[in-house]
């Protein structure tokens, strides 16, 4: 049915174009527009190049297999400026093909994108246009496994630029080589290793044509929109997340409230079970919760994770991950009613008294941890006192000891007979 509709659309467009041409010229065309065979006389040669040496070859078979070829569209349907040409070979430069004649919605969406923006700002920009992603003559529907925009092929297509150091440098793409980051992510591996067509690709998060910068509130990847974008697949997580402090923060307009990408990263998303990620995410929590990360690093938990081992409690072990609640909320894992159970996940023998330990104790905070504060002060003075006293003691001893050694040697050298013969 879809093909039928498209054919009808193309027929209409072609008819419209012809009508337009007739109207503008005011006279019937002198002859029929050139057929594809005419074009392929030259362009069918695989070695055909422009004067500048660029390949202008068109593979007839592959064009035939493309969505436009299968609709029996003529070359001049896109290269409209050649429809009335009689003189071949035609002029070197052709008018830019306008896809919007048929694909007005897609082009309108594209016009809002970062790609279009970059081209408007810099005429020399290499930002993607339609053909960069879709190809020119071999365009296939996204559902076609041979299409450049098919789920399993799309990351490769986008990575032609977003995985290319040259393009990233030329385009001053701040986020860098996201192609490589994505390829190593759980989504990228699902595509490349598991061939999982339902795994998120670039367009799943960024959209296809209206890929807008994250700073644009209308962007799918704007902070406030990220939970719903991820939630399109991870619906269960989104539902839980919305109830937690971060989710509530986002819906109530707090811009800093952590969204999915803050903890999971945008492109380099790893399996939640991966130890390396579990350790990395501690630092992510710490980018906002600075006091908590500092006091956590003072504890055994924080020291062991800092050494690179996940056997001890990380942030999520005690606070949860997607639905984190304030400690006075009964749903919180660290609320007074649930704290012991939380500790018992690891410390199975823990009793109520065990929960009196402060896992975020601050030795500088006299109000919160008076005992620790004074213990810390006492230890500091003990260390300063001991090292100060004996340090000075040693500093004074060192030169005197050196002198004593020299004196002893001199005495020995002066009277070798006496030491050798005690009877004398």
């Amino acid at each position: 049915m879809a093909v039928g509709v498209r054919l009808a659309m193309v027929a209409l467009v072609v008819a419209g174009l012809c009508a337009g041409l007739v109207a503008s010229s005011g006279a019937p065309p002198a002859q029929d527009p050139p057929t594809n065979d005419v074009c392929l006389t030259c362009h069918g040669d695989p070695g055909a190049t422009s004067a500048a040496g660029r390949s202008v070859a068109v593979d007839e078979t592959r064009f035939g297999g493309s969505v436009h070829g299968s609709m029996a569209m003529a070359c001049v349907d896109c290269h409209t400026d050649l429809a009335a040409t009689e003189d071949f070979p035609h002029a070197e430069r052709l008018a830019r093909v306008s896809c919007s004649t048929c694909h007005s919605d897609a082009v309108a969406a594209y016009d809002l994108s970062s790609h279009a923006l970059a081209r408007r700002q810099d005429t020399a920009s290499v930002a993607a246009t339609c053909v960069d992603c879709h190809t020119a003559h071999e365009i296939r529907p996204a559902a076609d496994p041979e299409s450049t925009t098919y789920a399993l092929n799309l990351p490769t297509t986008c990575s032609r630029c977003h995985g290319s150091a040259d393009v990233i440098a030329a385009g001053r793409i701040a986020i860098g080589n996201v192609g490589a980051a994505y390829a190593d992510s759980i989504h990228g591996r699902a595509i490349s290793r598991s061939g999982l067509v339902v795994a998120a690709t670039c367009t799943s998060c960024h959209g296809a044509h209206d890929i807008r910068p994250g700073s644009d509130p209308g962007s799918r990847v704007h902070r406030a929109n990220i939970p719903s974008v991820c939630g399109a697949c991870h619906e269960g997580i989104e539902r839980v997340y919305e109830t937690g402090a971060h989710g509530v923060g986002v819906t109530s307009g707090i811009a800093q409230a952590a969204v999915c990408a803050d903890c999971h990263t945008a492109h380099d998303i790893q399996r939640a079970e991966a130890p390396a990620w579990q350790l990395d995410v501690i630092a992510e929590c710490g980018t906002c919760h600075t006091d908590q990360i500092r006091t956590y690093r003072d504890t055994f938990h924080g020291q062991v994770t800092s050494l690179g081992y996940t056997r001890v409690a990380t942030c999520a072990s005690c606070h949860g991950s997607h639905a984190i609640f304030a400690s006075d909320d009964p749903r919180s894992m660290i609320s007074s009613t649930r704290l012991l159970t939380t500790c018992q996940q690891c410390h199975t023998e823990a009793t109520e008294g065990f929960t009196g330990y402060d896992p975020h104790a601050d030795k500088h905070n006299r109000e919160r941890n008076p005992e620790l504060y004074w213990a810390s002060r006492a230890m500091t003075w003990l260390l300063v006192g001991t090292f100060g006293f004996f340090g000075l003691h040693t500093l004074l001893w060192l030169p005197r000891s050196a002198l004593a050694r020299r004196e002893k040697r001199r005495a020995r050298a002066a009277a070798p007979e006496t030491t050798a013969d005690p009877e004398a």
Partner: protein
Amino acid sequence: MSNSGSDAVFIRRFDAFDRVLHGVLMFSFLGLAATGLPLIFSEETWARALARVFGGFVVAGWLHRVCAILLIGLFTVHLTRIGRRIIVGRRFDLLWGPHSMVPQPRDVRDLVQHVRWFLGRGPRPRFDRFTYWEKFDYWAVFWGMAIIGGSGLLLWFPEFFARFLPGWVFNVALLVHGEEALLAVGFIFTLHFFNGHLRPEKFPMDTVIFTGHVTTEELEEDRPAEYERLRATGQLEALRVPPAPPWLERLGRTVGTIAIVIGLSLVGLILYAVLT
């Protein structure tokens, strides 16, 4: 420095039991320091590398506990031995006097006199069997055993101790375990090393703790009060021992060198972490 001639006369200072205990103390202390320091400096690259060297944090943790048991064990053995000597052997001179480790007025006088000597304002004090800095080293181990050992046990069995101790005790235990360990490690690996081994008169090391004996010449120079007393009471001859076998001297120098190198390396890592 103890072998100053083939005709040197050797006097026993430490018996085999004490030397073995000191050896176990060295081993366990170095082990505790090397496996514990990575936690205190967990954000340093060297700490991660050191933890990996010990086979990861879990293995390092168990090595730390094994060394702790060893240290607590030798501490108990030492206390038992001293207790038996005093009570069963009626050696009350171990509680006061030149054979005692108990600090006495003489130690304060010696300290003052020693500092005067450092400054060239008087003669060197006439030390007896145990000097004031040796006594400090000795009692520091007691203090360390109580503070580090006690807090260590709290942290080893928190579930048990939390049945009757308030939660803040564990916060304090964690802090003092680390800080006191830094004090102990810093003290032993710099000041004890200097006082006992690295100072110019003893450089590179004093092997008495490995061989157990000193020459009469050395004794007379370092501890004239003891030398005079032994000579006056005629005990000098009773304490005379044959020279240590060469293998023991070599073993002592090897073990001592390894310990000093490890200790100073750890101090270097600590300083690097603190200063950067």
